[in-house]
């Protein structure tokens, strides 16, 4: 079964450093998402991306965050200058264009900001 792939599985960084989280969505999917989950808390929406542009973003997704689809397969989340509170599990998700509205999630990248 096709799956969403995320790399790396764990990322440790120093506060103030830039990080790029990478995702390979399912190949025929057209909608892409980033969510995050702080330990023990709910899964929070960050951003959705369709047709090479952001379609929605949450209040969390401020100027420090950006997304990009640099080629036909990768979808990246960049955090320009990480803060301690950015420590979380970041999930990439995708869905196709047809009537099904379910999301397919990757296994996540655990980001630890020290």
């Amino acid at each position: 079964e096709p799956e969403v792939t995320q790399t790396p599985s764990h990322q440790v960084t120093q506060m103030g450093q830039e990080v790029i989280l990478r995702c390979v969505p399912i190949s025929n999917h057209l909608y892409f998402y980033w969510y995050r989950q702080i330990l023990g808390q709910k899964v929070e929406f960050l951003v959705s991306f369709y047709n090479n542009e952001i379609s929605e973003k949450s209040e969390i997704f401020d100027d420090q965050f950006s997304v990009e689809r640099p080629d036909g397969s990768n979808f990246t989340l960049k955090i320009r200058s990480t803060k301690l509170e950015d420590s979380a599990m970041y999930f990439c998700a995708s869905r196709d264009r047809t009537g099904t509205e379910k999301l397919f999630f990757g296994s996540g990248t655990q980001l630890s900001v020290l």
Partner: protein
Amino acid sequence: SQQGEEDPQALSIQEGENATMNCSYKTSINNLQWYRQNSGRGLVHLILIRSNEREKHSGRLRVTLDTSKKSSSLLITASRAADTASYFCALASGAGSYQLTFGKGTKLSVIP
């Protein structure tokens, strides 16, 4: 903001018993989805129920939706130890929005 609230926060049952989890929400929805998350892993879609549906089944899963009470329930019948996971309801409001809003989840433990 729209958010599902699951109840209970944690549930512990014996293998073979049924598990029921509830989700309440505040505003109108297009559909409601249930996801499962094993510890430290991604979310896996279980079932979707649309606002004009009242009940859906998938294997050992049964989902109900009561839009007048703004609530949904997920029933897992004949639970197994492998059902141990966190279960989240996720709300799709529609109206041109494709994001899902998740609740805090119910942590289910099935004891062998």
